[in-house]
């Protein structure tokens, strides 16, 4: 018999109370009125004779009630469950130790308690028992094969530390299921050592453990937790005098019942603390911290937002990597000289917005030179003829090398005068325009909403394409390989995509000038123009950070620097993890690296001496929510899914707290106290009546 809170035995000092009460004979408040005190007053008052306990039964009841009360508060429990002894004689067992190594196990002393519990389990192995150690966070790994060698298991335990991953119980149980299914031993047992975070289990996909499996648990959750985490950062860029500045805002959350005042938050850029602020965060609330705008240096900038220390350090730092050059350079060729410019709407549309920022340059066809194409992300032929001669050849090369070309076919884009190379870039187009002015204009009849351009409008009430009226448009004849992204209501192609080399060509069958259609006057014009420009320019949103567990696809990261063709997929790469671990990626099959650590990964082509690509990796912030699920709920789900034949499944406790909670002797003791107090009340009332009423 042991006690969880033996200090409560100090309460036994209260036994002095009934002893004093019974020895003192507290004088009753009611006074006995007597005819005369002439005899009583003659008898000397003998105080010494009071030191004698009367009513021994009442005294015993009161003392027992106090003793039981102290026992109940001391939380007694039996060290070894009664069921353990008979089970031991049932034969060898296959034990799978599931050790949670998610980063929440770094909270306080959870990890040391977890390792101690695992060591106790290893030490408790019988001669014929076998055990395997499985560590898990989002993924599960069998650290050891099933073995009876306690030394192997203990050594494996010594080399494990909490990782940066989030908890997923399903993966751990699936691995345990496989190990137990392969075992021939008569008894199967799973020991789950975890902090039982609610986010780790969604109540679904619980694997079925083999029938007869015993699930033991070591609950390391703390009753009261306190944690502040950085949940993300936002960037606001601005450009002034060709200098790019960024203002960073950090988002914080306080996941505790107590507010935090004056919590320090520091912004570090390239390893240097730029600014530190003190922030107040209310209990169970979020807050934001705005840092002053700073100029972005050339290359990739490594940034970290750090919080002051708390019990869970992993989520106190938030890593990100940002770089300059997120503006798309767009060259608008607005027909030949002489006519009125028709690029007003499209210029205005692209001039709005900063994700990305479009830097638009408009030129007449005659004034465009080959050097104008250099460095452009997108060239927009806005109702213009195709350039001829060397400029035309350069244009084809530009597209083939990954440049984007967007062509709007208005009345000035005469198909009959196209140069010879035009067929590489554009589909065949009829001379005569389709005139829909007689029926008050046509509309868009089909849009491929699964295409990246129109994916943005796939949600309900997110873009009304029924209102634009198209009075004239060109009839396009697609070539094999061309992709039709939109069609008018009469079946003519409205938007067509052609891939040329590494570049993309988008052909819009009408104009952007508001003459052949009223699209520029409709609300949907702005997002459509942006989406067309971004897609044609192959713009990809910058990912300032990734999450632990995600995969970095190196060919896509290095696509812009490895040249055309499949050179990127054949290159060799080197990945350096935040811990300094180098990984060489060779061959054509291993093209990606799993991001397992928190911090900055450096990725580089093998042999290259240039600046490495930086990928910032953060922990999954769902894990920073330390709310625990009831262990019985989780293990009970395993029992329920094991089927009706799993009657031998049992959830047993291993820690003193669990043993005590399961045995619950204190309930019985409190019930006994209640009964004793009832008996004491009845008895003392009876005695009081005897005292008050003369016999």
């Amino acid at each position, binding site marked *: 018999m042991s006690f969880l809170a033996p200090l409560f035995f100090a309460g036994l000092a209260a036994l002095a109370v009934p002893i004093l009460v019974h020895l003192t004979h507290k004088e009753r408040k009611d006074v006995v009125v007597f*005819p*005369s005190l002439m005899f009583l007053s003659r008898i000397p*008052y003998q105080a010494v004779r009071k030191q004698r306990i009367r009513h021994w039964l009442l005294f015993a009841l009161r003392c027992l009630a106090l003793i039981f009360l102290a026992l109940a508060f001391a939380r007694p429990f039996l060290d070894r469950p009664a069921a353990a002894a008979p089970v031991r004689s049932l034969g060898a067992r296959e034990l799978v130790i599931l050790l949670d190594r998610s980063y929440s196990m770094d909270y306080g002393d959870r990890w040391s308690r977890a390792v101690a519990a695992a060591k106790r389990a290893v030490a408790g192995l019988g001669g014929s028992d076998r055990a395997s150690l499985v560590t898990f966070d989002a993924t599960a790994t069998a650290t050891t094969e099933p073995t009876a060698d306690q030394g192997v298991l203990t050594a494996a335990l010594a080399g494990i530390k909490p990782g940066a991953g989030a908890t997923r119980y399903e993966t751990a149980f699936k691995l345990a299921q496989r190990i137990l299914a392969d075992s021939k031993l008569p008894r199967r047992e799973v020991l789950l050592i975890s902090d039982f975070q609610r986010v780790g289990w969604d109540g679904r996909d619980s694997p079925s453990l083999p029938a007869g499996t015993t699930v033991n648990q070591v609950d390391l959750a703390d009753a009261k937790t306190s944690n502040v985490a950085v949940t993300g950062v936002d960037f606001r860029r601005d450009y002034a005098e060709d200098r790019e500045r960024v203002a960073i805002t950090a988002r914080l959350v306080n996941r505790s019942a107590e507010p935090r005042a004056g919590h320090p938050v520091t912004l570090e850029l390239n390893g240097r603390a730029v600014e530190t602020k003190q922030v107040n965060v209310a209990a169970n609330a979020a807050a934001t911290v705005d840092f002053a705008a700073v100029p972005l240096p050339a290359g990739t900038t490594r940034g970290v937002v750090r919080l002051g220390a708390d019990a869970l350090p992993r989520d106190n730092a938030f890593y990100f990597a940002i770089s300059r050059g997120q503006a798309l350079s767009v060259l608008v060729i607005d027909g030949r000289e002489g006519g009125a410019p028709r690029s007003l709407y499209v210029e205005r549309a692209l001039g709005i917005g900063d994700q990305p920022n479009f830097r638009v340059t408009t030129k007449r066809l005659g004034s465009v030179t080959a050097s104008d194409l250099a460095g452009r992300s997108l060239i927009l032929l806005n109702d213009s003829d195709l350039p001829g001669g060397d400029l035309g050849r350069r244009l084809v090369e530009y597209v083939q090398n990954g440049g984007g070309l967007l062509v709007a076919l208005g009345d000035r884009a005469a198909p009959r005068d196209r140069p010879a190379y035009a067929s590489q870039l554009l589909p065949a187009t009829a001379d005569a325009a389709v005139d829909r002015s007689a029926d008050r204009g046509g509309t868009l009849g089909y849009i491929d909403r699964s295409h990246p351009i129109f994916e943005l409008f796939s949600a309900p009430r997110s873009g009304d394409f029924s209102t634009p009226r198209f009075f004239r448009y060109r009839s396009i004849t697609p070539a094999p390989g061309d992709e039709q992204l939109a069609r008018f209501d009469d079946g003519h192609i409205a938007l067509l995509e052609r891939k040329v080399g590494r570049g993309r060509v988008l052909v819009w069958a009408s104009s952007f000038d508001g003459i052949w259609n009223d699209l520029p006057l409709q609300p949907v014009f702005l997002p459509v123009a942006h989406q067309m420009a971004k897609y044609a320019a192959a713009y990809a949103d910058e990912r300032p950070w990734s999450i632990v567990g995600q995969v970095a696809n190196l060919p896509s990261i290095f696509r812009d620097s490895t040249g055309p063709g499949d050179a990127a997929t054949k290159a060799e790469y080197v990945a350096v993890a935040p811990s300094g671990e180098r990984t060489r990626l060779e061959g054509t099959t291993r093209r990606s690296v799993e991001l397992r650590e928190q911090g900055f990964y450096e990725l580089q082509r093998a042999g290259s001496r240039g600046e490495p690509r930086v990928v910032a990796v953060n922990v999954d912030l769902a894990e920073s929510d330390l709310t625990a699920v009831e262990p019985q709920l989780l293990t009970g789900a395993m029992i329920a899914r094991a089927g009706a034949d799993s009657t031998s499944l049992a959830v047993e406790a291993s820690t003193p707290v669990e043993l005590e909670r399961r045995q619950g002797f204190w309930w019985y003791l409190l019930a006994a106290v209640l009964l004793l107090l009832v008996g004491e009340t009845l008895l003392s009332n009876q005695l009081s009546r005897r005292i008050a009423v003369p016999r």
Partner: protein
Amino acid sequence: MTSNPLPGIQFLDPAVLARIGNLELVARTVVEGFLGGLHRSPHLGTSIDFAEHRAYMPGDDIRRIDWRLYGRVDRYYIKEYEADTNTNFNVLLDVSKSMSFGSGAVTKLDYARTLAACLAYFSNQQRDRVGLITWDEDLVEIVPPSAKHLPNVLHALARAAPQRPGNIERVFRKLTEQFKRRSMLLVISDFYEDPGKILDAFAQLRGRGNDLMAMHVLDTAELEFPYDGATSFEDIETGERIPVIPEYLRDQYRTMIRAHTERIEKLCGDQGVDYWLFDTSMPLDYALFAFLSRRQFLTRVR
């Protein structure tokens, strides 16, 4: 709603009266009464209350012939007189505050009032003149003895209310002047006084030739002291309080109260005063019957 036609009639318990109906309350001393054969009177002769005339019969005392009537009608007539009430029967009832004590349903005063009422009625049936004096530290109410004062006595008994402490010595000194004729005096009290002082008070009345009876009325709780548990005891008359652990004092108390009653009884016996201790838990008819029987026995012995 019912109401008693006569205040105090509730103290006349039919059961008690039936039980003692065949007894007599006879004065053990010579008292100033005229009832022939029942009490010995110091006066010889006849009654003074005329009743009727009847014709002379041979053998009649010729001194009782009414000569004035013979002068008018020339016949001998004898004057008949009503039988004289024999003596005064006075009840001296203690109505001090200590008499209000009662551990059960009946207080000592209730018990004493019933006792007094029954004996007064009984005595009145014997044609004694009955009177009542209630007292505490002083005289409270006096009903002079008379053959017709039974209702007054009962009324006074009903009005009696304990209010003040008692002082038997001072009261009885006053009473010495009250009784001009020798009477039967019945003292009913709890006698919380020094026995010597009580007997001094009795002696003053006995010295006047009165026949004195003392009825000592005590509650069972006063005799047995059955209390338990430490508490304070308050004197009902003085309000004084003392802490008491009854279980430790019980034996001593019982010894003391027993010695007190025995002392009074002995001193009363020495003075020729009939003494009887009444426990209020004792049925009244039984107690009264025992008292009267014993008194009759003592009278015959004498």
